[in-house]
């Protein structure tokens, strides 16, 4: 059996680590764990914390803000989050986006009124214009 295991740590914005390690230690929702070569296939949610990688006797660290871990027979994949996730935090952001939409709809209403006024103004101006012309004509005739 091989002594090392291929590890890929990726986030949606970049690839954080890719290479072979002797051991990976990380923190899952049910506690800390270390993955050695030959580990059974595993899927786990990760909490924010450090990932410790042992590469040829030396240790390397990287930090992830949660994510998902998949252990395959010959490979470990860590899908790291780019931001700390919490349900209420997401909810707040969702509300923000909704509010933005509402604001836009409201502003659109205002803009629409404005355009209505604008067209009315144009109509009035045109009427005035024709009236003035008529008056001039009448003056010339008289």
């Amino acid at each position, binding site marked *: 059996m091989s002594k090392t295991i291929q590890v890929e740590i990726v986030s*949606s914005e*970049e690839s954080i680590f890719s290479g072979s390690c002797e051991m990976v230690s990380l923190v899952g929702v049910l506690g800390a764990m270390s993955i050695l070569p030959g580990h059974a296939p*595993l*899927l786990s*949610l990760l909490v924010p914390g450090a990932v410790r990688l042992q590469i040829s006797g030396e240790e390397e660290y990287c930090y992830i803000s949660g994510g998902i871990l998949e252990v395959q*027979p010959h490979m470990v994949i860590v899908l790291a989050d780019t931001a700390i996730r919490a349900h209420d935090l*997401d909810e707040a952001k*969702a509300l923000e*986006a909704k509010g933005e939409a509402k604001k836009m709809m409201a*502003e659109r209403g205002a803009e629409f009124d404005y355009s209505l006024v604008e067209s009315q103004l144009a109509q009035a101006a045109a009427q005035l214009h024709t009236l003035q012309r008529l008056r001039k004509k009448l003056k010339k005739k008289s």
Partner: protein
Amino acid sequence: MANTKEIRTKIRSIQSTQKITRAMEMVAASKMRKTHESMRKAKPYARYILEVAMHIAKSHSEYRHPYLEKKGEVKQIGIMIVSSDKGLCGSLNVNVFKKVLGMIREWLQQGTHVKLCLLGKKANTFLGRKGFFKGVKGNLSVVSSLARLGDRPAVADLLGAVRVMLDAYEADELQRVYIASNTFVNTMSQHPRVEQLLPIPSLEDKKLSHHWDYIYEPAAAEILDALFVRFIESQVYRAVVENIASEQAARMVAMKSASDNAEGLIDECLLLYNKARQASITRELSEIVGGAVAI
């Protein structure tokens, strides 16, 4: 013939415009390289998350996630429209809007409700145009919008808008969710594209030869939830980043042609200027000669 001073000021003003378009062209070129890089960086995540999702789908066939399930009758549709924040990028945004509006019109005619999520400022201003919603027959509304994403948006910036759509989908308020954005073909061409986000299309079509019995920590459903939410988010992120890369490429091309046109205008004006100058010299000469003859 126009006087020489007038032409000179015109040339000068065209030159200063040209300077601006040149600068914008170069800025767009360098930004395009950067966004292209972040597009490339986002690829492995999308690939791995798809891989993991497929492994699970394969080894866990009895559990069907709602994101994979096709819903029977389609009454309401969500569309996320990705656009740029700034203009001056050719017909980039208009192309997407045209394509999406065509589809929206069809759905509305069938009596489907359409809910929009607008990403980027241009979509906001385009759909916020006066009387836009008035001319539309049927049920169309904007449920969320997000603007000022900048040149390098983080995934975290997009989460809110995505969550609104996912919540609506989970609550069965939407039966399908699409995303409309530009695809970056190459620097010269970007194509508008409308893709289905939910339900996730044809995940199981790709055959995998192997599967494992996983140990789940915690339960499988919980992991699948987290996984699919992230999958959708990464799809949206990719669309947004790709749209930004397209925007920069389109701007670069537009600004290049603007600079070239300015060059042409300057040449024309210069010719006019020289002719005017020549004419005034000739006139002066003939005046002098005329004066000399008179003496």
